[in-house]
Each structure stands twice: as structure tokens, then as C-alpha cells.
């Protein structure tokens, strides 16, 4: 059962504030979708291996060589706030 509390809990995990006015609506949406996906429970998958990736490739390595990269100025150019080469956010530690 998905209710307002679940929505707020999941929102907190996802760092997403949910306006209390919308919580019931989102709860209903999630409930409907989760109810729909329950059809997967009718399959016996006990001996099936999971697929995380369709291609038969693993561990793609490359040489660890230095190549040109973005300058710090360019990389930080779109930060809302930055200071002396650091991203600036609200104070975290008192």
C-alpha cells in the first residue's frame, strides 16, 4: 500500500521535496503502477539469471594516459555559485 508517508519517504531518499498538496495524487499513481507490475509475480524466475546488460562485454579497460581535458574554468562555468575553484553550497558543518 502506497500512501502519503511512503511518498514522503521515497521523496526524501531521492532528495525530492513533495508538496503536501500533491502527495495523495502521487501515491495513487505509484499504487496503480506497482499494482500493474505485480503481474511479474506470476512467473517462476527461481532458476533464471538476471540481465543487467544485453551485450556480452565486461571490464572494458583502457591505458591510463593523460589526455587534454576541460579547464577548471570551463568545467565550473555553469555552477550556480563557485569560489576559488570550488562549488559553493550552504554551510554543512557547524
Amino acid at each position, binding site marked *: 500500500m502506497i500512501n502519503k508517508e511512503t511518498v514522503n519517504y521515497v521523496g526524501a531518499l531521492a532528495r525530492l521535496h513533495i508538496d503536501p498538496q500533491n502527495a495523495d495524487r502521487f501515491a495513487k499513481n505509484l499504487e496503480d503502477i506497482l499494482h500493474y507490475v505485480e503481474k511479474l509475480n506470476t*512467473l517462476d*524466475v527461481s532458476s533464471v539469471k*538476471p540481465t543487467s546488460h544485453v*551485450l556480452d562485454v565486461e571490464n572494458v579497460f583502457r591505458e591510463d594516459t593523460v589526455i587534454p581535458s576541460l579547464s577548471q574554468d570551463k568545467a565550473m562555468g555553469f555552477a550556480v*555559485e563557485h569560489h576559488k575553484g570550488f562549488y559553493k553550497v550552504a554551510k554543512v558543518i557547524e
Partner: protein
Amino acid sequence: MNFYNLTAHELLSLLDQKKVISEDVLKSLKERVSLVNKKTNAFIREPQVSSPAKGAFGIPVGIKDNICIADELVTCGSNILKGFRPPYDAGVVEKIKAHGSEVWGGLNMDEFAFGSSCESSFYGPTRNPWDLERVPGGSSGGSASAVAAGEAVWALGSDTGGSVRQPASFCGVVGLKPTYGRVSRYGLVAFGSSLDQIGPITKDVTDSALLLNMIAGFDKRDSTSVDTPVPDYAKALVKDVKGLKIGIPKEYFIDGIDPEVASAVHEAIDILKKEGAVIKDISLPHTEYAVATYYIVATAEASSNLARFDGVEYGLREVPDRVRKTPLIDMYETTREKGFGDEAKRRIMLGTYVLSSGYYDAYYLRAQKVRTLIKQDFDKAFGECDAILCPTSPTTAFKINEKVNDPLAMYLSDIFTIPANLAGIPAISIPCGFDKKKLPIGLQIMGKPFAEETLFRISYTYEQNTPWHLERAKL
């Protein structure tokens, strides 16, 4: 002369014969955009062209607004990327520029490609050129609408669960989702990383092959791109399907499918049969589980991919009026609340939920296992046929606002396109007729991994026998 109704290969041949110059083509296209974009809203921003293209491939390629072009805005149809200009080109953009072509960014899309109707864009819905009251499909609705309206000669979209093929079907154009790994995802803003592929949206099959020629190939910056030789796809444009085995999956002709869609697809089957293809009935027994599997796997991947939008490195930053938790966490939570639309929020929440402690095995792991079963269905089917043919979508284009308040109904419009993404196989949608309302119907052909040439051969043969690709929407 109006160039906007021509295909890229027609224009290229005129350019080759020096009957036109690229400046005139660009001018004609820009005029077309100025004239009709206010009706379609296919481009979020009208293309700015600084200098005319010079290379042999001098026809601009429209680019969905989730593919990075250096120093140009990229919005993903979202408010959260407000003002962001990526400092680099996507792999596909690099390749197109290397061919001497322009790129025209800013094609509208469902926010972060979350949708099947192009209505969830922060920049307003795109409309279908065949009927402006209807959706163009999605999520690459801007790309499909622009090509159908003549605003772009050809375009790129991205396809995670049908986002190239379903809008191509709704807009009467050709849309190809290549094999997973055929085209670099470097610089494509990620949605579902194990499902996403960039693909061409074009007026006909020939253009699709030419555009795939431009963008296919290995890119070391995308470790899931595959280092196998890229054939010349233009050579696969052969009018000959003799002896090719084409499977018809019974699970794709279900109750609820529009009878006019079913009948158009059956007529297509007859045409290919007359051309010498061997038609076989096949079964893909786990088809009915594909949508449920997809909405777990894709949202799980999306919720982690979208974690990067947090008001720090780029885009929007919003803070609440009062402190709720701590100033930093409040900033993250409010930025994401104001930056994302409802559908993005739903998917982030659903993805977070299915990955959360206590639910991972019940949802995410189980879905990954069912994904294996769906993939095995295709492996088995391709043991007895070379390609699989079915409708692209169960219906033609629906009305704007018809499904907006029913996410599940919206998700089910991708029921026939999602399986190819889960299995990683290539699939193409080509026009196969119109319904009584003069709305386009799409035919989907799915192939074995890296067998895009087979798809082109079948599509081209069908196209050469039918007039649908010559029809243009009147605006």
C-alpha cells in the same frame, strides 16, 4: 524552390549536380521553420545557423534536445537544466560535424525522454503535423514532428522504450533504433543506460541508412559501444526479400489493437509475401510482461541517472522560504521539486522505491530476471526467422491531453516497442498506411543484434512497393 518536402538523398543529389547550393537549402529550411514552428512547437528554439554547411553532406541534421552540442543550450525539455550549455559535443554530433553537416539542436521532447506523447516538456507540447490537435508521439516527438512538417530534412532522436519508433509511426516517417552498442551514447543525457540508443528519424528508408552511416561506430568514451566494423548501410538498400524468413508474433495482434492498424500491417505482410519473403507464425510468450519489466528497470536506472541534477554543478538552484531539514538538503530537495515536472518526479520516485531496501529483490531483481526471459524469447525466435514484423504502436496518434492524467495508459502505448530495448536488438518503424482520419500507421520490423542491414533490406523493398513515404502533411 521549396526544398522542405525533399529527402536528404534527393537534396544531396541536387547539390552534387550543382543544381542548388547549400545556402539556398538552408534558407528554405529556415523559412519553413519560421512559418510552421509556431503550429508544431517541434523546435524549442529556432535554429541559429552561423555559416552555411560546406561538406558533401551539407544537409543540417535536427538534434533532439538531450544530445549535447558544444556551447549550445541543451534542456532535455526540463526546467532543471535551465541555461546549461555543455562544454563538449556528443559522439554523434562530432561525427556529423566531421561529415561537414550542420547540427540544428533544440528539438522538443518529453522531459528527460519520459513519455510517449511529447506533452511533458517544460517548453509546452509538440503537435502532430497530420492533425495539430493530436500528439506527435514521444519522447522524440519534436524530431518526428519536425521531419514530418519539413522543418528538418532528417533528425536524431533517442529511444529507450520506443521513443524514436513510436513518434515516427505517429508522424508518418521512418524511425530506427539501432542495436544497443551500435551508436555511441557519449553526450546523450542518460535516461536508462542499459536501454538508450540514439537513432535516425527520416522521411524514407534511404535517408535512414545514410544517417546511420554517419553516426554508427565505436567510441572509446562509451564503453558500451561495440567495436565491430560498420558496414555501408546504403548497400543494404536492395529491393529483394526472396527467401528471407519473416516471423509474425501472435502476441502482437492482441485485443485492443486498432483494427485499422492491424489491417494495414496484414496488408504489409501480404506485400512482402508477394515479393518472395517466407512468412512464419512465431511466438514471443513473455511479451505481456515487457511493459512491467521496463517500468522497473528503466525507472531504476533513471532515478540514479537523474541524481546528478542537484543545483550544484549546473542548471537551476532553488531554496525554500524556511528551513525544513538543513539548508543544503533543503536546497537539493527544492531545486529538484521546482526543476522536475510530474512525470519525472513519478519516475524518480518509482525507481527509488524499487531500488530501496526491502524492495530490491521483489521488484528490481525480479524484473532483471524477466528481462532475461524476454531476451530468450527473441533468441529462440531468431533461430527460426531473420526478422520479426508487427505494428509499431497499437493505435494511431491520440489527442493532446487524452492520456496525461493516466500514466499507465500512456505507458501501454509503448507495448510493442519496449521489448526491442529490453533485448537490445535493432528495430525500425516505417509508414504503412493511414487510418480513416488520415493519421499515419507504423509498421515495425525487429532484427537480430547488428542486423540493421536486414531491416533496411525489408523496409526498402516494402517502401518501393508502396506510396506512403511520398505523402507529406499539409500545414
